[in-house]
């Protein structure tokens, strides 16, 4: 089939128009997309920088908070854990109504304000379990962070109070002076130094207390 000669210019015109039009649409879309991307890259960059700084602090902080020195006393049940293998606390020790032991067997039947390295019994001021609402055992880092930031279950703490608790409370900082066990072996410390941990908590908080999605 051949086209009549007079239709050829018309067809060419249509082709040119379509190609030009598509190119124009394409260019407009690209420009729009580019400018959008530019805008979002700029804000993402500042957000990301801040988030990245916060996230860096978060990761280091969580290396500590998920360590057994912390989680042993943030159990999900009514029994504390102990030891490097986080076994259930010997001697039928239980949470009790005030998180300080059951009945006449309170934490300070054995634990006092400081470590007792002769007996291998750890101690620090306010030695007790974290309340059940603040259980960390079995939670992911993100879940721990969310629970830590939830004033309904964190003892009504705002971010400032949470940071203070995390960086100043003697029972928290005991993790870096955990003493020796009943055989005289030093207890394992968290994998980050106390100074680096405190700096990491502050870095996390001062940059927006960013909690990643997962």
């Amino acid at each position, binding site marked *: 089939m051949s086209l009549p000669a007079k239709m050829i210019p018309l067809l060419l015109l249509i082709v040119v128009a379509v190609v030009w039009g598509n190119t124009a649409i394409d260019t407009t879309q690209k420009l729009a997309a580019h400018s959008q991307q530019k805008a979002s890259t700029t804000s993402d960059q500042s957000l990301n920088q801040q988030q990245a700084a916060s996230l860096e602090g978060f990761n280091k902080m969580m290396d500590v908070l998920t360590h057994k020195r912390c989680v042993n006393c943030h159990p999900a049940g009514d029994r504390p854990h102990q030891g490097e293998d986080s076994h259930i606390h010997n001697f039928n020790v239980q949470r*009790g109504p005030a998180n300080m032991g059951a*009945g*006449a067997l309170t934490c300070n039947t*054995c634990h006092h304000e400081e470590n*007792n390295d002769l*007996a291998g*019994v750890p101690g620090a001021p306010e030695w007790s379990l974290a309340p059940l609402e603040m259980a960390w055992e079995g939670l992911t880092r993100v879940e721990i962070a969310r629970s830590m930031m939830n004033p309904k279950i964190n003892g009504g703490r705002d971010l400032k109070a949470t940071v203070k608790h995390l960086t100043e409370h003697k029972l928290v900082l005991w993790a870096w002076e955990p003493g020796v066990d009943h055989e005289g072996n030093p207890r394992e410390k968290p994998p980050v130094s106390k100074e680096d941990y405190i700096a990491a908590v502050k870095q996390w908080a001062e940059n927006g207390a960013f909690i990643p999605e997962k």
Partner: protein
Amino acid sequence: MKISFNINGTAQTVDVDGETPLLWVIRDTLDLKGTKFGCGKAACGACTIHVEGMQTRSCAYPVKLAEGKNITTIEGLSQGDELHPVQQAWIEEVVPQCGYCQPGFMMATAALLNMNANPTDQDIDDSIVNVCRCATYYRMRKAIHRAAEIQNNNLLK
């Protein structure tokens, strides 16, 4: 280091290393031999005494913490010649076998009765976790219930 406290109703001052376990001071310095050494690791309960009425493992209690406190050992459980309900119950139920662990159990029981006048079996399981190598647990449980009965109904002889 000088440390002053009240033990069995008597004021005492001792001059010892503050880290010395209170158990050592009670037995060796004050010559009160009723409180026993079992493990030295806060694990067995043989050394249980009261500090301000609460059961405390004296082997894991540095004497420096005793400053200004009221301490009771098995020797101070009774008032003069009158037995404590726990002591009477222990005699009635013929609890001890070798006897080594018994002062610790009796002090733990007295501490429980101080805060719970009618302990259930569950309360006993929760609160009394000492170790008896002669396995007198069955008789002890009966004696703890009996001690509560004696205390609540004024049945002291």
